[in-house]
């Protein structure tokens, strides 16, 4: 997380971090027959005989999972702005075709200073023209309509809000998007009998078959965006995320806009099941000691192990700030 001392604003890190390979998000496709046959050889009365079992087949059922990632967690706005976009990537992380219904909510009661106002007549667009962000070619979403998604298929969802007038710099307003399976959601393990592709049973996965995410509008003239990436190096010279492997995280923080982000502080909790690699913290390529206070960076073990880097006052002219650190998988 990144906080700005002057405004106390918060900014979530962009990008998914996977300790297991991300490419296998979907798994074996629904309806795939899994067939198994055994053979046996044996001696009876001096002769050797071979026999084969019946082929046993199991048909892969459908797992229902939806994920949503907010692509613009922090959107700088000015009071009175119209049609400001928060962008989400909604993905069918199940193993078969499915569809989702999108529901926006901007009247979140806590955690912010103002309520953004959903744009009318259309608050949600599907990014269908390939141009990043909201553009006239995008498809207006009809409230309540199902958006079909193939297995591993994704859609970029743009939620538009108007920003009220009369706000102070630093005020935040949260907007939420719910992407829920159109055929129903439920606790993980809930079975929709025969509801899967081709009439197989469908089972709700760990997502509960829905995703609820928020983005934040910040009244400000400057915004800090953070993009986190990772590289895995294992002790066998490969890049498998296995115990003993080292994950090197790179976070690039970019200030954009006019004005100054005062005493910006970067803090990132070391992921569960990993251990911070001592002496691995770098700011713009310069090694930082693990001790807090002697230079810009440090490692703190309490309350949760995390790296902290003071970035000082940032303006757009400061340019991107690159923070690197490593952790080993336990």
């Amino acid at each position, binding site marked *: 997380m990144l906080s700005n001392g002057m405004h106390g604003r918060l900014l979530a890190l962009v990008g998914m971090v996977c300790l297991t390979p991300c490419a296998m998000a979907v798994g074996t496709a629904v309806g795939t027959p899994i067939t198994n046959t055994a053979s046996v050889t044996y001696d009876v009365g001096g002769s050797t005989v071979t026999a084969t079992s019946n082929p046993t087949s199991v048909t892969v059922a459908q797992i229902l999972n939806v994920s949503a990632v907010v692509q613009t967690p922090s959107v700088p706005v000015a009071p009175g702005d119209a049609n400001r976009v928060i962008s989400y990537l909604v993905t069918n992380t199940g193993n078969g075709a499915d569809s989702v219904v999108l529901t926006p909510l901007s009247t979140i009661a806590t955690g912010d200073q103002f309520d953004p106002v959903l744009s009318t007549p259309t608050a949600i667009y599907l990014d269908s023209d390939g141009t990043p962000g909201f553009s006239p070619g995008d498809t207006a979403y009809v409230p309540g309509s199902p958006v079909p998604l193939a297995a591993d298929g994704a859609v970029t969802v743009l939620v538009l809000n108007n920003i009220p007038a009369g706000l102070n710099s630093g005020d935040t307003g949260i907007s939420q998007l719910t992407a829920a399976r159109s055929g129903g959601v439920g606790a993980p393990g809930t079975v929709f009998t025969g509801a899967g592709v081709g009439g197989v049973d469908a089972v709700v996965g760990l997502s509960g078959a829905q995703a609820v995410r928020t983005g934040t509008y910040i009244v400000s003239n400057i915004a800090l965006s953070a993009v986190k990436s990772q590289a895995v190096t294992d002790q*066998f010279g490969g890049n498998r995320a296995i115990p003993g492997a080292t994950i090197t995280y790179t976070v690039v923080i970019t200030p954009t806009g006019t004005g100054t982000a005062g005493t910006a502080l970067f803090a990132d909790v070391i992921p569960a099941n990993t251990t911070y690699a001592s002496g691995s913290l770098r700011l713009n390529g310069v090694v930082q000691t693990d001790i807090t206070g002697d230079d810009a960076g440090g490692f703190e073990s309490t309350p949760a192990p995390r790296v902290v880097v003071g970035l000082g006052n940032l303006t757009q002219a400061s340019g991107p700030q690159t923070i690197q650190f490593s952790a080993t998988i336990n």
Partner: protein
Amino acid sequence: MRKHNTARTLAYAVSLSLAAAATNAAQPAPAAGACVSLETQALQEQSVAGADGARKVTLMPATKVVPGDQVVWQTTARNSCASAAANVVINQAVPEHMTLVADSVAGAETRVLYSLDGKSFVALADLVVTEANGTKRAARAEDVRHLRWMLNGSIGANQSTSVRYSARLR
């Protein structure tokens, strides 16, 4: 790995007495045709409420298998002849789309061998994978594609024995 070796050592110990029993068994005239038939079942652990209300995990036929789930593949060998079947070897491939679960291969009084290609079978500890770049490393459970159970004893007349392993759907 260690667990597997322990199990195998135990199986050897048991096999001594069984082998003796097999040698002493009467050897009637060989029966023509198939004596040993195999049946393979796909099973899943399911939590079922008992009569007392307590939930208990039991193995039920697999019906709803989704990615990430484990399936217990159980193969039962039945000897329907009047004479014992000796030197019984059961082979089974890990199905496509599935990976073997570590330490899940079981079979009473058997020696289990593992293979990457279905041709060369060795103990798991001796199985070596050659990576694309030529480097060699010890095989992990997910590398194994074929299993072989070698029964230490024989299957007596009208007797049966079962072997099993677990595999996870990718």
